[in-house]
């Protein structure tokens, strides 16, 4: 509401704080929203609530112990962090990983993608009050986490990667259970796709909200499903040296809407695609050793990238020829997706802000390790 006095505008905007505590956010981020009469005009982000200084542990831990530190950067997408770290060191020291280890890493990575997208779908349904769908998605997620417990030993932070391969193998019982799981989940995910995609209430709350075009996304540097929801076909799983994806039939999933509905459908279809990738990888699993015995002493610099459930993850490593690294730098996808978020917010109503903030899938503990 504008307050004018003698031609001078005294007050036109209010500032409303969003976060760091909010029922919709999985992790704390603070946004100062500038409002003019219920319409958002601008936003100012502030991060730093969960900074733990994990990159500084490079001085105290050696290369093999840093795998377990890297895993604990994020509690949702943790396997891809340790996989990217191990792949960077293997590239730097020219270590050849056996084929069976690549397939096993891919199977666990796709299971992580399924559990992360199901978690996000549940939170998204909760953001507009649809709590029974929230409960149903998390109930199905429990079955995914049970499979990870049966095959790897713990529920989410599974600690299977080691420099040179993996530490655990799948025996015949586990392979049968994985096949039963993928068969059961096909029907369940199709029902979810109908429940999310065809529901009139969800369509009303998500279509046309938070629109951003492909050129704006590329200019601002968005990654992951947020980018693919605007029509840009970019996915790190197309790179030739990531896991075993080059041997599986994989096509990135792209939607052309640019709004919240398109981003939600990208993640829903990626869950279905991940289920099919797991089934294909289990059928094609080659026999052989699962790791090579190496004592890495890396020297020089190396970068490697991998596709996390939220986007492109990049690791930079510098070694000096000893068992300790010189420098480790992690660039996570949510950090790249915050500028597009600030572009999506102006023009929406205040009640749409939780939906738009959730649509980039914020994982703030990755952003500020």
């Amino acid at each position, binding site marked *: 509401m504008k307050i004018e006095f003698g031609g001078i505008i005294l007050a036109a905007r209010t500032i409303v704080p969003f976060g760091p505590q909010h029922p919709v956010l999985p992790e704390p981020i603070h946004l100062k929203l500038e409002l003019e009469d219920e319409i958002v005009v601008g936003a100012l982000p502030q991060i730093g609530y969960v900074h733990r200084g994990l990159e500084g542990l490079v001085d105290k*831990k050696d290369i093999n112990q840093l*795998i*377990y530190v890297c895993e604990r950067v994020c509690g949702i997408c943790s396997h891809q962090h340790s996989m990217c770290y191990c792949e960077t060191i293997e590239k730097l020291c020219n270590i050849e990983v056996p084929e069976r280890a690549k397939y096993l890493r891919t199977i666990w990575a796709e299971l992580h993608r399924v559990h992360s997208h199901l978690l996000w779908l549940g939170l998204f349904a909760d953001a507009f009050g649809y709590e029974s769908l929230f409960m149903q998605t998390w109930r199905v997620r429990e079955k995914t986490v049970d499979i990870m417990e049966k095959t790897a030993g713990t529920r989410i932070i599974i600690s299977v990667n080691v420099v040179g391969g993996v530490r655990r193998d799948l025996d015949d019982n586990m392979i049968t259970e994985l096949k039963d799981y993928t068969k059961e989940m096909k029907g369940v995910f199709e029902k979810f796709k109908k429940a999310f995609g065809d529901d009139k209430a969800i369509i009303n709350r998500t279509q046309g909200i938070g629109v951003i075009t492909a050129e704006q996304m590329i200019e601002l540097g968005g990654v992951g499903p947020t980018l693919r929801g605007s029509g840009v076909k970019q996915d790190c799983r197309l790179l030739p040296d990531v896991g075993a994806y080059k041997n599986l039939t994989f096509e990135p999933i792209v939607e052309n809407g640019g709004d919240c509905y398109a981003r939600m459908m990208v993640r829903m279809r990626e869950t279905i695609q991940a289920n099919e990738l797991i089934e294909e990888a289990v059928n094609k699993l080659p026999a052989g050793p699962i790791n090579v015995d190496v004592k890495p002493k890396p020297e020089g610099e190396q970068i490697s990238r991998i596709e996390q459930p939220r986007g492109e993850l990049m690791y930079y490593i510098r070694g000096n020829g000893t068992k300790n690294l010189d420098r480790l730098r992690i660039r996570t996808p949510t950090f790249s997706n915050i500028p597009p978020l600030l572009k999506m917010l102006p023009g929406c109503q205040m009640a749409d802000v939780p939906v738009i903030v959730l649509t980039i899938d914020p994982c703030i503990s990755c952003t500020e390790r």
Partner: protein
Amino acid sequence: MVFGMLGQIIKNFFTGYATRLYPFEQRKLYENLRGELKIHIDKCTFCMVCEKRCPADAIEVDRKEGIWTLNPSRCILCNVCVEDCKYDALYMDNHWRAPYTENKSISFKGTPPKKKGEE
């Protein structure tokens, strides 16, 4: 839409429970589960490899007295010590540790290795 909902309501009268009736019906523990770290102290030779490899600094080995100490609050159940122990002294139990109120370390006493020159 009304018929779909009515059909689901009538079906719900005849299907069983969607959840387990805990505590009368419990899910069985899987064999691979990493629950708690334990040691067969008579097989331990106090070579100190587990202390060097632990990422969380949870194990302390006193070679002279022959005492192996574990701080269970620091242990992250990563299984590195179990895999690297050449004498198969360490193993993971698949039961979770019960809730506790004090942060105490657990010690085991074994026979220390003999020094060279001694009998």
